[in-house]
């Protein structure tokens, strides 16, 4: 791919059409505003969907671990369901739910804005409804992030439940005898002992979110809607390589992305790796 990134190549014409262009692909890519825009979009959506994933999953797992085993099994099964179903299928379902004129999300909001008991809170919405959740640039990041959050929050909950299950129960009992309330038990026993699991979960989230492709691709109909805000770097890479058939530039973009992800993960491992991996 290093070799390719210094060339122009159109895959339709075969390997013989490769031409050496030196650093031109890199120069073009690095000065391409869309590249930086999509990189920024990726980061924003990674944070918007990633942070709430863990903030919700942790307390949820803490609640879950206190349930009876049978009940816990059923709840876990339900929470895990989005994770195993295909991203394309769930994005299709959400695409319909987000629909401007007939989507259930706008319908529920319209109901809440009209109904007497809730209009004091939602009444302000009636002037802006119906909202184009996946058509308007201002909203699309939130819509995509919500779907990503919805898909992976259960997975993280299950990881944390597994982590909490490994914690010795005597610790909690000792803390209770010492007068610690449930928040203090969570803060001073569960959280420190969960560190390796948090590290694992957050690492997976970072890697996954930097690669976001399916959800924005389906929700924006391959980038037809909301050209600027809903496109991730992966979507852009796909577009350069397979829609514009400019493999050389795509390879250069891949290398730029590789270096950026490399820097991110090194910084992350540098700061949290030692604690997370349970080393010195």
């Amino acid at each position: 791919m290093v070799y390719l990134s210094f060339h122009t190549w159109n895959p339709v014409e075969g390997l013989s059409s490769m031409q050496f262009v030196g650093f031109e692909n890199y120069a073009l890519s690095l000065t391409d505003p869309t590249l930086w825009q999509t990189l920024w979009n990726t980061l924003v959506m990674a944070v918007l969907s990633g942070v709430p994933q863990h903030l919700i999953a942790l307390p949820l797992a803490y609640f879950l671990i206190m349930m009876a085993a049978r009940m816990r099994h059923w709840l876990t099964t339900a929470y895990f369901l989005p994770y195993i179903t295909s991203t394309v299928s769930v994005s299709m379902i959400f695409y319909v739910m987000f629909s401007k004129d007939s989507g259930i999300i706008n319908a529920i909001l319209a109901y809440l804005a009209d109904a007497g008991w809730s209009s004091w809170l939602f009444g302000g919405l009636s002037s802006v409804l119906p909202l184009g959740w996946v058509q308007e640039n201002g909203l699309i990041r939130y819509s995509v992030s919500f779907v990503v959050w919805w898909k992976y929050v259960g997975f993280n909950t299950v990881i944390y439940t597994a982590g909490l299950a490994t914690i010795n129960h005597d610790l909690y009992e000792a803390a209770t005898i010492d007068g610690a309330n449930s928040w203090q038990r969570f803060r001073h026993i569960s959280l420190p002992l969960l560190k390796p699991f948090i590290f694992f979960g957050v690492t997976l989230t970072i890697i996954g979110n930097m690669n976001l492709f399916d959800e924005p691709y389906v929700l924006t109909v391959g980038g037809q809607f909301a050209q600027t805000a809903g496109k991730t770097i992966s979507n852009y890479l796909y577009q350069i390589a397979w829609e514009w058939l400019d493999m050389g530039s795509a390879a250069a973009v891949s290398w730029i992305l590789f270096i950026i992800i490399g820097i991110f993960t090194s910084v992350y491992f540098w700061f949290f790796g030692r604690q997370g991996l349970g080393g010195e």
Partner: protein
Amino acid sequence: MTHAQATFIVNLYHKAGKGIRNVILLLFVLITIFPFIWSAILATHDRTTMFSGGIDFNIGDKLTQNYQDLLKIMDFWSGMANSFSIAFVGTAVSLVFCSMAGYALATFKFKGKNAIFGIMIASMMIPPVLTLIPYYMVISTLGLANTHLAVWLPFTINPFGIFLIRQYVVASVPKDLLEASKLDGASELRIYWNIVLPLLRPGLATLAIVQFVFLWNNFLQPLVVLNSPDKMVITQMLRSVQGVPNTPWGAVMLGTTISILPLIALYMFASRQMISGLTSGAVK
């Protein structure tokens, strides 16, 4: 305040806490499964009832019509069959490759073993999108473009799978047993097939589930290499109808719901195994 009163208040406080906790947990179940239920409901409606506005949780009467529309807009069952054959064959082959590699890495001593293992683990950190162009180049150079082989073969040698199997071999195949069989004159292949594989059954089951789910849900690689409609997998077909003018959404939701069902069935059947399998990296 008497002691009884204090106990009463403390109990009430605990009960309220438990109640709130249960409400949160159940609310979250609702958030999780609602989209699935909603797509199943929409599968029984057509455009006119969907666009009538308002919220309608009733089951419509357009199921058969939606089914006919679904067959009209896409070759639904051929997509399902393609997805199924790719997931099934890919899973079976990857069980063979990963178990062989995992077994070899766990028991044999050879030069460069640690290097191979290190490179393998490091490769798990590389984001899949970055490998897309090399993947495509290899596939087109080998002349595998637009074949199903291209969609499953590269993923049968899976670092995660090899790592998983290696851990299982270390944990559950006694070294003495292997030596004893060798003394009895069993060939390496025979030891692998008759002794190691049966002992690895739980690990293989976990890997099978992980691979099947991955191959069934995969979208990006088929999107890149499969371009003739009769080869397309179901995820690709569902997504492609977004471009159809006046999309019959009821029919599409029916298709989406059916495409999810095999996985839900598998999940209900093996949920314990599956959850532990898919999160096994987390538990040391």
